[in-house]
């Protein structure tokens, strides 16, 4: 058996689902953010793998992946700033305790 596209897809699927799981179950906003990073990495594995196996003629996939990495950094920056600002006022980073507004 040689290394093929499917291997990478399996890896990315598992990583995506792990990230999603963190997003759904972790109370800490920072941990949720880490879950999001895992999901984005899963997408990036897909992109780079497809670039190699499906369309090696151009580097669109890798460019896409680089853009996603940049966006992940931006999201982390803004998201962590929001976490900090919420923490200052509400003194918690547990998102299930941040639910004044509902219904």
């Amino acid at each position, binding site marked *: *058996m*040689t*290394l093929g596209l499917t*291997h*990478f*897809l*399996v*890896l990315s699927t*598992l*990583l995506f*689902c*792990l*990230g*999603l*799981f*963190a997003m*759904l*179950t*972790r*109370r800490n906003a*920072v*941990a949720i953010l*880490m879950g999001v*990073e895992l999901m984005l*990495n899963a997408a*990036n*594995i897909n992109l*780079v*793998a*497809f*670039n*190699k*196996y*499906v*369309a*090696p*003629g*151009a*580097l*669109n996939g*890798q*460019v896409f*992946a680089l*853009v996603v*990495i*940049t*966006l*992940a*950094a*931006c*999201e982390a*920056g*803004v998201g*962590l*700033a929001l976490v*900090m600002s919420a*923490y200052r006022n509400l*003194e918690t*980073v*547990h998102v299930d305790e941040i639910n004044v507004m509902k219904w």
Partner: protein
Amino acid sequence: MGQLAAFIILSVVTLVSAVVVVASQNIVRSALSLIPTLLGIAGVYILLQAEYVAGIQVLIYAGAITVLILFVIMLTEHGTGARFRQVNEQVLPGTIAVAVLAALLMAVFFGTAWPRAAGTLPQYTATSIGTTFLTSAILVFIVTSFVLLVALMGAIVIARRER
């Protein structure tokens, strides 16, 4: 064959540390094990002949983002740490949802005949990526810089205390 072995080792590193990220009761340990996960993924990129992406992955992800996350964890230490329950009441529905989604995705991926285009990746992807960013992806490149600018500005506005 050697590639496959390398892939398996990298996958195991990535997934095991990702499980720690997701499941650890200690948030600091979660954040720290994000580093091997991201480094493992960088290794996967090298396997995929994407050295440049791998490099960026190490620099930005494993370096900058993880450090940022650790910083925030330290700063909000009062509200974090092992003293608190780290998971909410959604573990069961979450598990089921994730399992179903994983099964669906796997089934679809295995059943799909992905198209294969002719051609090979360039020898040195870094140069080609640079060229791409300055030609066909020029707009993407410029807009990315603006996104970074607003993200920077937004993060400052939100994170700074009001005087």
